[in-house]
């Protein structure tokens, strides 16, 4: 079976700026694929290129078996798209927004009504159908946007930061919805900044300054050799005052990275460096595993170093 989505060496240029630089990836049918990366790293541009909205300068991309360069309108007929900011009409009611998109996707009146009812039930929008979209709260807006993106039974849905700026409860509910869709065989391509969301994806891609730096399951990415390089280890330090701890160990020889997590401190240190070298109480220091965030930070640093080396021959 062909993958739901595939790109090989996809490159997008805006003038002299290369927004996406030779990205290759493949997403299987029914998979939840998470694309992560800092703002401006090319996530949205990559999605737009996959939908044929911006031309590829090099490489190729196909979605659901259709070539993004030759058949973009076929792709757009069979995908759903939900963007990072709420992009429905705030002055229309939730129901009117759905009607409008049903019309845009060319659904007949009977089918439109049926789908509307199904999706209102699925996302739980029923009581709010007559409310103007602009008056809905963030979580309901996103559920409405998702319902609109699903009207035409797409087999793949692009979700560009679907949970940005909504509360944790609503966020969890949106994800529960996404897993239900995934269980129905719909492929989901999600971008996010939330590491807990990243952990929920089947597979992840990390894009940085237009380059796809890593692809794989969350556990694979945490275990990448560059994340905890040989000769180093990760530790967790408990303390009353994490910020004082951070100030005291930062810059000491042997400390590669240090950051605060709530009441504790996490650090990447050289193998030979013990609690005593850092002026820490040994009973408070525990070994720690790298998480996804650690993985991405290490990947970004390595890429930055590589680029700096390239610039200075």
């Amino acid at each position: 079976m062909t993958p739901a989505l595939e790109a090989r060496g996809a490159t997008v240029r805006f003038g002299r700026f290369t927004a996406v630089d030779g990205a290759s990836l493949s997403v299987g049918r029914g998979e939840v694929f998470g694309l992560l990366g800092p703002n401006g790293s090319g996530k949205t541009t990559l999605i737009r290129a996959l939908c044929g909205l911006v031309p590829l300068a090099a490489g190729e991309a196909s979605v659901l078996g259709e070539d993004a360069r030759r058949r973009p309108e076929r792709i757009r007929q069979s995908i759903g798209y939900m963007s990072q900011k709420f992009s429905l009409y705030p002055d229309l009611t939730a129901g009117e927004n759905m009607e409008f998109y049903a019309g845009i996707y060319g659904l007949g009146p009977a089918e439109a009504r049926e789908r509307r009812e199904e999706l209102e039930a699925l996302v739980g929008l029923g009581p709010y159908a007559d409310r103007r979209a602009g008056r809905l709260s963030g979580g309901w807006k996103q559920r409405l946007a998702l319902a609109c993106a699903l009207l035409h039974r797409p087999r793949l849905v692009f979700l560009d930061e679907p949970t940005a700026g909504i509360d944790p409860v609503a966020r969890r509910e949106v994800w529960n919805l996404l897993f239900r869709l995934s269980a129905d065989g719909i492929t989901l391509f999600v971008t996010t900044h939330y590491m807990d969301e990243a952990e929920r994806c089947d597979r992840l891609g990390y894009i940085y300054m237009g380059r796809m730096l890593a692809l794989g399951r969350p556990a694979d990415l945490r275990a990448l050799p560059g994340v905890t390089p040989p000769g180093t280890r990760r530790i967790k330090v408990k303390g009353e005052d994490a910020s004082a701890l951070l100030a005291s160990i930062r810059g000491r020889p042997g400390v590669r990275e240090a950051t605060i997590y709530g009441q504790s401190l996490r650090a990447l240190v050289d193998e030979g460096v013990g609690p005593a070298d850092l002026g820490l109480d040994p009973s408070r220091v525990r070994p720690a595993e790298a998480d996804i965030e650690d993985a991405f930070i290490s990947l970004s640093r390595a890429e930055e170093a590589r680029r700096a080396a390239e610039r200075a021959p």
Partner: protein
Amino acid sequence: MARKELLHVLRDPTTLFVALFIPVLQLVLLGYAIDTNVRHIRTAVLDEARTQESRALVRSFENTGDFDVAVLAADEEELHRALVSGRARVGIRIPEDWSRRLLSGDPAPFLLLVDGSESAVAGQALGTANAVALRESLARLLGDRPLPVEVRPRVLFNPDTRSANFFVPGLMVVLTQIMAVMLTATSVVREKEQGTLEQLAMTPARPGEIVAGKAIPYLFLAVGEFCAIAAIMVGVFRVPIHGSFGTLLLVALPFVTAMLAVGLLVSTLAATREGAMQMAMGTVIPSIFLSGYVFPLDSMPAPFRALGYCLPTTWLIDASRGVILRGAGWAELWPNAAVLSGMAALVLLLAALRFPRSAA
């Protein structure tokens, strides 16, 4: 798409206000307030002669209806002050020996001072003053004999030379233009701001379909507004339509299309609604000044006149006055329709070329 756009207009009170109320307000203000016919010019008189003849001269000035004696100056300085302060626009100074010279048959000059700061007033004052002097002179030379040459004026099409008849047909066009450009531009830019244009780009809807969906309701709105203003014109301002309104609508249709396309073009350039508004106003201003709406095209320097003929507004105002005032029909107006159609096609093409790129 079109239905949704109509809902937008109804839901957005600002747009409705801009669309309906402002044109009507402008119509009433401009229609009632503007009178290009200069009357009752405030006049200062310094009569140093103080004779029967000099008083008769002042009276004949007043009798024209163009001059109102507002200041009776005692000396030259007071006459000057009246003009400088603006209490009077025109000063008449009749010298001491005026009557004597007049009666003895010598040329009898009197001084006319005109404030040139308002050119319309100055022009009217000069013209009327010359006419008064000429009539007095002729009366003296000819006595009771009839005038050898006489003008029998008959002003066609607008016999009372009412300003409303001149302005409102043009105003109709300008208001329709403002509305069409502004609404289209802001409606597209609003989609840009809301990100809904991006959402639409992700659907199978083609850019052409999106544009058509946006343009159609505004086309109807603009044409509706054109008709509404025409109705106000006939009902309130009593400007009769001599020709066929259907013909005028037929000529107006390509004009409105061109204006909607201008709106689209503006929307491809502007990123925010405020920017779009300003740009839209930017396109309207030359149309007001160079289209012959306020100032006659014939009296403009050639390059500006040429520019004026490049504006769609010029052609529709011409047609509008033609139909409403002169009773012109299709035979006279088909060139206007042809030119406007050409312009509409051109602007639409430009907008169509720019639109998909700005959406992506």
